[in-house]
């Protein structure tokens, strides 16, 4: 039999979890020296498939053929040894250890004999340097990882994958926290690896990226493979179409909100941290969607968290409905009808081990306390049910643990939490990050509807089409300063990018 043209063949893989068929006969074939994009809505089964490949899940049925041999991995360690590496979306390096120790963790080069072995730091340093040079990465192998930027840590993880002599490198949303420049650098590295015959399985939601870097695209939906296509035959609309299984010619809902009087006025907001925001002034109208654009590091999140009372300010004033206000804690912000949907859902949003029910009500218990200090659980239950029905959260029941929901559904639960507080001002920090296309449209619809009902919305987003598609006005920030406020109808991508990089 001739050698297969594929380095990896996954045939008819199925995997069930209690109550869910996560993968249903999925086949994936990857050629060596290619970038194979894996796309699909959240919950389509991409991560599950990759975890099956990487030995983190056991497969119920199906087979994995790696370089012509059928393999069965018991653990991630097995997979690594066989030449498969995975670069997770959330990188978890050991912060207070050197870069090279992170790269060679668990297999440090040693000298000595028998049980008397010592770590050979010299060899470790030389080996690490060699890899960094080969991949043109500018990282000092002896520095502590805690000192590195996200992009550098990611480079380090790629170097680690290369050090395992991996034939296949899985990258899960590698660009989700990178700036444009860093993405360019990452693509350079990917192309180098591809030229050396490494296969890259690339998971991402960003269409533009996929079309730029991928050779082939496999699209999944509801635990099944829709198909594998050459990237050259695809367009953004085609991909979306196949992912959601319906025509999505309108990516954004129509909006008919009418901005009214000013409800929030911010003047000269300055952070005590000299590297953070300074002298930011803007206002927000009733029923308006104010987009906040900028690159990672523009201090948009820091500014909004200060408005919400999560961070202190050095100077600056806020007027709510024309009255000067001082908001020093989230408790005060919530009582003044402000809500904040945070950027890092997992860190500051969800309570993973609590029920969906308690996650919805986390910011709302106060309004369910009866005169006898007990909670009105009946009203709690019915309101939770109403909320999760309204946003069509997919969950077996409101008693299910939050950690068992997909990212998009978790986000909807957090939306329900804030909507229940009946806010007048909603600050949404990257509300559609890590959310599939279908759910994105639902979230946009919710946002548009809220604005129509007279709620004022501040929406931070790093996705330019989203900002342009949703915002009435767009505030652009760069390096902690406001560089302009544009009209949503007349603004274009070039102008926003110019303002986003004004001080760079």
């Amino acid at each position, binding site marked *: 039999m001739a050698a297969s043209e594929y380095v990896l063949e996954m045939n008819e893989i199925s995997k069930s979890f209690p109550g869910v068929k996560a993968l249903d006969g999925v086949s994936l074939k990857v050629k060596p020296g290619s970038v194979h994009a894996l796309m699909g809505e959240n919950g389509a089964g991409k991560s599950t498939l990759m975890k099956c490949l990487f030995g983190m899940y056991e497969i119920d049925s199906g087979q994995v053929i790696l370089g012509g041999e059928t393999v069965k991995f018991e653990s991630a360690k097995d997979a690594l040894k066989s030449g498969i590496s995975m670069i997770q979306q959330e990188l978890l390096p050991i912060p207070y250890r050197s870069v090279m120790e992170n790269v060679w963790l668990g297999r440090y080069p040693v000298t000595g004999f028998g049980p008397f072995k010592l770590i050979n730091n010299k060899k470790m340093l030389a080996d690490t340097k060699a890899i960094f040079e080969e991949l043109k990465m500018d990282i000092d192998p002896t520095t502590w990882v805690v000192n590195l930027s996200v992009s550098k840590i990611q480079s380090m993880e790629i170097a680690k994958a290369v050090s395992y002599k991996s034939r296949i490198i899985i990258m899960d949303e590698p660009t989700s926290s990178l700036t444009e420049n860093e993405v360019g650098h990452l693509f350079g590295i990917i192309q180098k690896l591809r030229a050396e015959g490494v296969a890259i399985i690339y998971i991402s939601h960003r269409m533009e990226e996929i079309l730029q870097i991928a050779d082939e695209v496999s699209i999944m939906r509801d635990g099944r493979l829709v198909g594998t296509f050459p990237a050259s035959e695809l367009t953004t609309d085609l991909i979306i179409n196949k992912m959601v299984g319906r025509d999505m010619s309108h990516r954004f809902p129509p909006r008919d909100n009418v901005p009214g009087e000013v409800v929030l006025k911010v003047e000269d907001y300055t952070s005590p941290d000299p590297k953070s925001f300074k002298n930011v002034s803007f206002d927000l109208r009733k029923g308006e969607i104010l987009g906040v654009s900028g690159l990672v590091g523009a201090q948009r999140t820091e500014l909004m968290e200060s408005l919400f009372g999560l961070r202190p300010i050095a100077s600056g004033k806020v007027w709510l409905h024309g009255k000067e206000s001082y908001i020093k804690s*989230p408790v005060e*912000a919530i009582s003044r009808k402000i809500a904040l949907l945070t950027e890092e859902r997992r860190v500051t949003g969800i309570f993973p081990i609590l029920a969906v029910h308690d996650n919805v009500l986390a910011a709302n218990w106060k309004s*369910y306390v009866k005169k006898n200090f007990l909670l009105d659980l009946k009203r709690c239950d019915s309101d939770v049910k109403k909320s999760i029905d309204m946003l069509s959260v997919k969950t077996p029941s409101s008693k299910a643990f939050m950690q068992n929901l997909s990212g998009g559904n978790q986000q909807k639960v957090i939306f329900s939490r804030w909507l229940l507080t009946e806010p007048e001002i909603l600050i949404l920090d990257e509300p559609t990050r890590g959310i599939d296309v279908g759910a994105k449209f639902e979230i946009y619809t919710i946002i548009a509807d809220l604005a129509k009902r007279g709620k004022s919305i501040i929406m931070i987003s790093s996705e330019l089409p989203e900002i342009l598609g949703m915002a009435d006005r767009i505030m652009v920030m760069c390096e902690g300063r406001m560089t302009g406020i544009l009209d949503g109808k007349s603004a274009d991508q070039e102008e926003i990018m110019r303002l986003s990089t004004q001080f760079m």
Partner: protein
Amino acid sequence: MANATTLAAGGKLWKSVKDLAAKRAVLLVLLLLVLATGIAQKNFLSWDNLINILMITSVYVIIALGEGPILITKGVDLSAGRLVGLTACIAASMLQRTDYASKIFPDFPMMPLIVPIALAIVAGVAVGLLNGAIISWLKVPPFIATLGTMVIAYGAVSLYVDRPPHGASPIGGLRDDFTSVANGAIPISGTFRLPYIIIIAVVVLFLMWILLNRTRLGKNIYAIGANPEAAVVSGVSVSRTLITVYVIAGALYGLAGSLQAARQGSATNNLGFGWELDAISACVIGGVSTTGGVGTVGGILTGVLMLTFMNNALVFLNVSPYWQNIVKGLIIVAAVAVDIRKYLRKR
């Protein structure tokens, strides 16, 4: 066809039995332990003995109900045992019989029963407040903060009871009306009597169940344990909640200290030594997670019952008391090893 249905129903039943066994493993082991010991030694299952065990359980469960919510917030309270000792001595010192020869405070007047017990609870509340303040305002980790107050509480109680000419001797000769709070009972019928102390424990259990399940404070306790950062963003006042939790615990230690002094009829500065570890053990056996966010009142009660029944059963079976510690240690590890299976990621 009918056969298949029966089979399916049987399988379903078996599955729910298995689920129940996994969920309530500790409770099942407890029941087996009680039955097995009862078969080996008939007296073990006598009313007198069961009531006796429940009376012992009562004080411990009150302490564990203080410790449990703290563990749920991802904290720990090492001062629990010493606070029980401190509050026991405070209550006892004011409740010695007037005709008792070696009263440590001969000048204390006769006071109504409620006053010394209230003062013991106030002392517990004060140290609880101190714990909470150190943890939430000075940001000292709970383990260290309560390690400090544990040592301080022991020093304080030793100074308090060290009264010449008696020195640090036990505070005995307690008033009968006081000791009967812990040892007295309501006669029900024949030999069956319902001790006050069990009623007190049941009331505390009920109140704590209400607190954790039916109040905003309880929901915030779980939220802080599950994700403190998200709790802050959701407008939970974390400092205030934590301080309240430690204060409630302090009050419960004060109550437990008073009851223990009454039960023993005396108190020393060494009373309560190491009891915080028993309380923590009972909680983790009962499924309270030391990583926060998980734990129930029912679980805590099961854990305490497990420990007290086990001790008593081993006595009945004539096992050397030294074995009790070995068995206790094994149960702690085994219970958590089984319990943690519920949370380990399924492969």
